[in-house]
């Protein structure tokens, strides 16, 4: 009873909106008061993909999101490991402080950085935007990676070390494969959050870094619902594609023939 209630409600409130947006992107515009038409059309997607501005924005958004993800993973894995496997004075304070950016208005950070970014020549550049996108993402990544290292435990790494494996080899054979669930979540979160930033990109990018969110707002006024729905659906596809890409990259870095892959998920 409870189960079927939960399933029907989440089908209506979570699944249906996604399905509806996708459906809307391949059907003609529904004029108010006229019967909904379900004639299949690719016009929305064609307009979306043929637009030069969108193509550039798509490329730039992916570049920014991937760069932010890379920096996030580097910071998150290095400090997550230290926070999980080391004990030192003031550890819980540092952990709390590292979460603090989540409890502050990101816009304050963006406005505060604006003048410094101009002085450093980073304002209006894609890398400046990457830096400001770190503010809402790094705390999550550190948290996720710390939890990952908590689950991994220190024993496995110590054993590899005792058997004479070099740090890089340990990373490829033990850490990377066993941390994949955490890495997946971190990548997903970072890409989704980076793709959701309008105001941070607008302030630091200053109108010359045109990402997908930046053109989403003016598009809303100028194009019809079919194109808008295609545009909207694309946002949801990007994090999924990013996780897939990271999966492939990690397969390449990982050492082959792992014993660890058996038994341990």
């Amino acid at each position: 009873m409870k189960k079927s209630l939960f399933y029907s409600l989440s089908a209506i409130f979570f699944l249906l909106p996604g399905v509806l947006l996708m459906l809307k992107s391949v059907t003609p515009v529904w004029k108010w008061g006229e019967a909904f038409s379900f004639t299949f059309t690719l016009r929305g997607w064609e307009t979306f993909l043929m637009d030069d501005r969108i193509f550039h924005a798509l490329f730039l958004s992916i570049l920014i999101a991937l760069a932010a993800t890379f920096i996030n993973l580097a910071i998150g894995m290095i400090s997550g490991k230290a926070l999980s496997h080391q004990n030192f004075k003031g550890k819980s304070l540092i952990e709390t402080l590292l979460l603090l950016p989540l409890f502050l208005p990101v816009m304050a950070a963006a406005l505060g950085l604006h003048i410094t970014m101009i002085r450093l020549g980073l304002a209006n550049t894609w890398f400046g935007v990457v830096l400001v996108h770190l503010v809402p993402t790094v705390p999550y990544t550190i948290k996720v990676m710390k939890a990952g290292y908590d689950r991994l435990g220190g024993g496995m790494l110590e054993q590899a070390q005792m058997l004479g494996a070099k740090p890089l080899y340990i990373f490829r054979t033990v850490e990377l494969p066993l941390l994949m669930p955490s890495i997946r979540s971190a990548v997903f979160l970072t890409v989704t959050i980076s793709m959701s930033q309008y105001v941070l990109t607008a302030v630091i990018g200053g109108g010359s870094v045109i990402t997908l969110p930046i053109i989403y707002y003016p598009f809303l006024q100028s194009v019809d619902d079919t194109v808008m729905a295609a545009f909207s659906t694309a946002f949801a596809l990007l994090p999924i594609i990013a996780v897939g890409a990271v999966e492939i990259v990690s397969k390449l870095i990982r050492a082959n023939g792992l014993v660890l892959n058996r038994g341990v998920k």
Partner: protein
Amino acid sequence: MKWRPNNKILYPLIPALLFLLFVLYSLVMSFVESVRGPDGWTFEYYRSLFEEKRLYASISYSFFVTFISVSLSLLIGWGIVRSCHSFIEKSVGKWMVWIPMLFPHFVWGYFVLLLLGQSGIVSSALFQLGWLESREDFPILVQDRSGFGIIITYLWKEIPFVLLMLLPVYAQLPKQYGEVIQVLGGSRRHVFSTIEWPWVKPVLVEVLLILTVFIFTAYEVPALLGSSYPQMTAVLAYDWFYGISWDERSYAFALLFLIALVMGLLSLVSFILLNRKRWLISKSQHQR
């Protein structure tokens, strides 16, 4: 001193500490910008900021929208997790919860507009069914002054967030203690107060703080679904930042810095209060 031998441990924390410094620097700079006048330092902008009518309208409006959105998403989300966590983990249900998380907030805002706007899908469907005489009969739900559209969008996006934050907590709840309490004759209230609440409280506080500051100061959704007056704080700050006069630019910095200060202190205090008890729990948790 113990500092020296510990130095090695600190090296891996350098990137994270640099990041903290970066965030701290940005806040210091927004304070500096808020007190820098044409002829030196001044708190004049703070004084005249508090004489702005738009500020009070914006603060009370943002507070109203934030309070409703945060409390409802927490209550509903927590309620769902409490009654359904046993089967959501490891099921298709969990995948469905992820769907709204995939979309940025402004895309969800557009979806709410598409669905509930006066010329939206629901309004059109009701007309076709003959339940509406004209478009104007449909109530103005989005881009309205009461903030209904904004609240709906936030609820729709944040309830899944609450679910996904709380599910792991309930999955890790030490159920055997519950059995112990039952065997020893404790009531359900005992189970709640000795097991469930201490585990859930830190996460609830964390989610509460994240959602409060996010909704109070987010620009994307109110820019899309809000009306021109009153404005949410971020929209007002954005207007001021790109305003014509220097004064208004300083107001934007002052307003955001004040919110950052209040929220920062509030979260620090709540974490210090929580941590006292939390490390007792986490200590036993690590020594598995």
